């Protein structure tokens, strides 16, 4: 048995070999040292060491958050329900600590108050920001460029697309691009051709029926319109279908060859008085909905060139009863006499009879032989998805489904050809603005979206992803059954199309900011009745005015009666003491609060809010109190300040306001 001391394995081995062995084993030791060093210098370790230094410089109160800051080592937020692993906080170490606001990046705290509503331990980081959360290096996290197939960290605008993957409501707060995009999708009726979750096409259709088109428009107009709608109507919702001249011809033939089910009314045009028609036009406030010469509303088509589009007879028939021609139109049936209607039609025809510039085409009737071809074009381009026509189904979903468009496979070639970076947001942006440039033979029309609109649409569409968020994480607009008024009231609402501008129970339009759900508790019945018959501007600064529908007194009585007895909120029905002491106290409060800055009370005041003289005839006391206490609750975004009034104070103030008599000299309204 020999000694156990190693005498060198190499004894007996040649010296050269010894040297060689020493060299390679030193190389081994060196390579291992290299590996250890590389690990010591791993990006995240270096960053954390830097952070400890930065932290070390914080003193006193600023360092109070030390306990809440994480211990050293890799940080991981694991969200198994959405299969996300985020290690961003391994380097972004100061996200929750305001004391670090002057620290160098990446240690700065997260801006805004987002982390209060979107706690990191529940949402991680990449759900909102994108990037590759598993990584612990700058490149790996896809801060600028994608990595391992993960999208790069999103810009502020593109982040809103990610907001949309959970926030399914139409208008989530804090995401303006997304809201704009979703509004555009609804407004342009994308869902007519593309299946889109959250958007239904039928309810939003606002394109006219095409039955009886031959009686309505001239062949010249039709040809010119089909070739380019925006030449006639700059704000047309109908896109430019890039139709060839032969397609235009065929379509014209098809459309004018349709049966004409409704006969037009005729009037004695020799008796028409265009000037009186102008008065009717102004009195009825048609510009609330119809733009003329660049001013007015956009609910209806602009009337600037209406005389060149259609005949007097048609205008006369339409004004007398729009619902006969277009059952779904938003336009009310005004209560006008035949003479008034005739005069109005004459006025419109003569005053607005010029064709727009560059809007000319041949007026020859199209060849009937092209009817079949026209039908083919009509079907191929999916016109009937927006325009109802007898004999055609409701929908032509000729566009691809967009439910997962946010994960669509990208064809980079068209983008590269246009000098754009080959990303999906760019592709969608290019597609919605100029469809035929990214897809050969695209059937989608060119809608003329501006850059902002195109980008907003891209953001909204990018929120439609293949992998659904679990239901526990999504929010949506509450689903409310549509409100359909019944009986006499319902018939009147339908005749006068109240719901075009007003909403009840979520159904209706938003042109009027006054929802009618509790109007009976807000306004006095007499006022409602009088207002319906003679609407006037409550606030001087308001642009839109309710049109003068010329509602008959009995009709106004029915409407006001229903609104006052049914559209009420019991919680708002309350009385207010009207004794002198309360009124006096209210007056003090009124003066102290500076209400005259916005409201006229007595002889003077501001023009921002409604005049308060004589409001007892208009407002109900319970409502006045409720409004004064929490105006933002009733109308989010209103300029009325919330002064934090107690109930007693609000009652006193209301008592004072309602005690103000109406001014004698000025009548209400114009």
């Amino acid at each position: 048995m020999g000694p156990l001391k190693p005498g060198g394995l190499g004894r007996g081995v040649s010296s050269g070999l010894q040297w060689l062995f020493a060299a390679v084993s030193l190389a081994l030791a060196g390579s291992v040292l290299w590996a250890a060093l590389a690990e010591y210098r791993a990006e995240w370790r270096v960053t954390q060491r830097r952070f400890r230094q930065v932290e070390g410089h914080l003193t006193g109160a600023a360092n109070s958050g030390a306990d809440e800051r994480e211990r050293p080592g890799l940080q991981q937020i694991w969200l198994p329900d959405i299969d996300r692993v985020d290690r961003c906080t391994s380097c972004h170490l100061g996200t929750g600590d305001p004391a670090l606001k002057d620290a160098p990046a990446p240690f700065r705290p997260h801006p805004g108050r987002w982390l209060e509503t979107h706690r990191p331990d529940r949402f991680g980081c990449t759900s909102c920001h994108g990037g590759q959360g598993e990584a612990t290096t700058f490149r790996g996290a896809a801060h600028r460029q994608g990595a391992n197939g993960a999208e790069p960290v999103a810009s502020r605008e593109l982040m809103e697309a990610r907001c949309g993957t959970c926030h399914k409501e139409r208008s989530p707060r804090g995401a303006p691009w997304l809201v704009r995009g979703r509004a555009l999708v609804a407004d342009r009726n994308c869902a007519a051709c593309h299946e889109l979750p959250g958007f239904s096409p039928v309810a939003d259709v606002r394109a006219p029926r095409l039955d009886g088109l031959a009686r309505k428009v001239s062949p010249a107009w039709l040809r010119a319109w089909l070739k380019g709608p925006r030449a006639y109507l700059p704000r047309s919702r109908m896109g430019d279908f890039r139709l060839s001249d032969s397609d235009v011809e065929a379509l014209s033939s098809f459309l004018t060859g349709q049966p004409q089910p409704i006969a037009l009314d005729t009037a004695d045009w020799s008796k028409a008085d265009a000037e009186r028609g102008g008065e009717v036009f102004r009195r009825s406030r048609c510009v609330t909905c119809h733009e003329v010469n660049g001013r007015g509303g956009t609910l209806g088509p602009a009337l600037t060139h209406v005389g060149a589009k259609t005949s007097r007879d048609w205008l006369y028939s339409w004004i007398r009863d729009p619902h006969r021609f277009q059952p779904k139109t938003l336009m009310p049936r005004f209560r006008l006499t035949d003479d008034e209607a005739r005069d109005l039609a004459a006025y419109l025809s003569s005053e607005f009879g010029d064709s727009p510039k560059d809007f000319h085409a041949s007026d020859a009737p199209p060849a009937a032989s092209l009817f079949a071809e026209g039908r083919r074009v009509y079907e191929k381009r999916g016109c009937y998805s927006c325009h109802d026509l007898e004999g055609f189904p409701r929908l032509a979903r000729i566009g691809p489904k967009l439910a997962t468009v946010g994960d669509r496979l990208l064809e980079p070639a068209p983008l590269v050809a246009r000098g754009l970076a080959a990303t999906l947001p760019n592709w969608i942006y290019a597609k919605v603005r100029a469809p035929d440039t990214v897809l050969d033979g695209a059937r989608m029309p060119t809608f003329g979206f501006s850059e902002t609109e195109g980008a907003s649409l891209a953001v909204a569409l990018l929120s439609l992803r293949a992998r659904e968020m679990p239901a526990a994480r999504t929010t949506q607009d509450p689903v409310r059954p549509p409100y359909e008024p019944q009986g006499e009231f319902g018939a009147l609402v339908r005749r006068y199309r109240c719901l075009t501008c007003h909403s009840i129970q979520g159904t209706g339009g938003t042109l009027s900011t006054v929802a009618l759900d509790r109007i009976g508790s807000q306004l006095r019945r007499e006022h409602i009745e009088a207002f319906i018959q003679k609407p006037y501007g409550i606030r001087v600064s308001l642009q839109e005015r309710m049109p003068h529908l010329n509602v008959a007194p009995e009709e106004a009585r029915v409407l006001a009666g229903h609104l006052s007895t049914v559209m009420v909120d019991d919680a708002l029905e309350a009385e207010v003491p009207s004794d002198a002491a309360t009124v006096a106290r209210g007056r003090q409060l009124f003066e102290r609060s500076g209400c005259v800055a916005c409201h006229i009370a007595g002889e003077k005041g501001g023009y921002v809010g409604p005049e308060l003289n004589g409001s007892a005839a208009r407002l109900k006391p319970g409502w006045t109190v409720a409004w004064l206490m929490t105006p933002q609750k009733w109308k989010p975004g209103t300029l009325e300040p919330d002064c934090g009034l107690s109930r007693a104070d609000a009652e006193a103030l209301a008592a004072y306001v309602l005690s103000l008599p109406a001014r004698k000299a000025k009548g209400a309204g114009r």
Partner: protein
Amino acid sequence: MNRVLRSVFRTGWPATKQQRLQAMLSSLVLHVHPTRVRVHVLRPSYTLGLGLVSFFLFASLTATGLALMLYYVPHPQAAYRSMKDLEYAVTFGMFLRNSHRWAAHGMVAVVFLHLCRVFFTGSYKPPREFNWVIGVGLLLLTLALSFTGYLLPWDQLAFWAITVGTSIVAYFPLLGPQLRYLLLGGHEIGQAALLRFYVLHCVVLPLAMALLVALHLWRVRKDGGLSAPPHASQRRVTAWPHLVFRELGVLVLVLVAVNVAALLFDAPLEEIADLARTPNPAKAPWYFLGLQELVHYGAIFGGVAVPTALVIALLLLPYLDTDTRGVGVWFARERRTANALFAAVALALVVVTVIGTFFRGPNWAWVVPWAR
């Protein structure tokens, strides 16, 4: 203390000749060596140590593989995530992964070179025929290990490479489709295939490999040690230290090479496997690219006929070539034809592999790599 040590290590550190001889016999690990070896065997230029290198590579792969197994999850989504964990969230994770991958590629290449060495020195001739056959088995096991491991990252590269590879299996006559079905545990590459490949890669094939390696080394001893030309010196030296020292040196060299490769080059990780998108081109692992090139000319030809013919030729070789001249010498004159034939086939394989690697682009069209 001395007593404790001596109960473990029966002989002391070998200093005397007696001890040196005994060291081989009294150690489990070392007794695979003879007590004495011929000096001819020690010459690096004879064997180039290739068999040893492949053995050490296998040992390294086992060690790194075991560590990787603690993090890897053999289920489609989780597999890819665990690869990212290894890259970003495990200390020395990327080092382990790189070591494993480059050692694996190295082993395939070295095993092939070892085969060439054994052929060119005629070391398959009697009495070593069966050991050659075991060696061919080891070659196939090495390829299988590399192939099964290739799928495990579950990225686009892995998924489509294995799609191509397993599709070639289906071309086998009679049993091809059933073989593929068994291999994949289904009709597509999915959860079942990944699990099967994982079990094959981590348990079945390594066990088989260990078994065959043991047999292979045992046969070397039984066949009278490494081959030598008849005129070689009969002088012997003790295995300790001469052989063992050199082997240690080779081990250190292998470790250095693997480490440096691991530190310099990162193993790739593309996007997660996506059934809907085939990369263009979709290439098999490099050692099968020659096959894929041949498959391009004809599926049965390239996928079935050629590989089967090659394997059968290799297996039958020692039983067909009984001429015992030219053993123990590189490129012996007496074996000119045999060497030329083998070299031609080997070269052809290399050429088609090179073509498949560098000269084939999208849709397997011919491309010239330097004309970009």
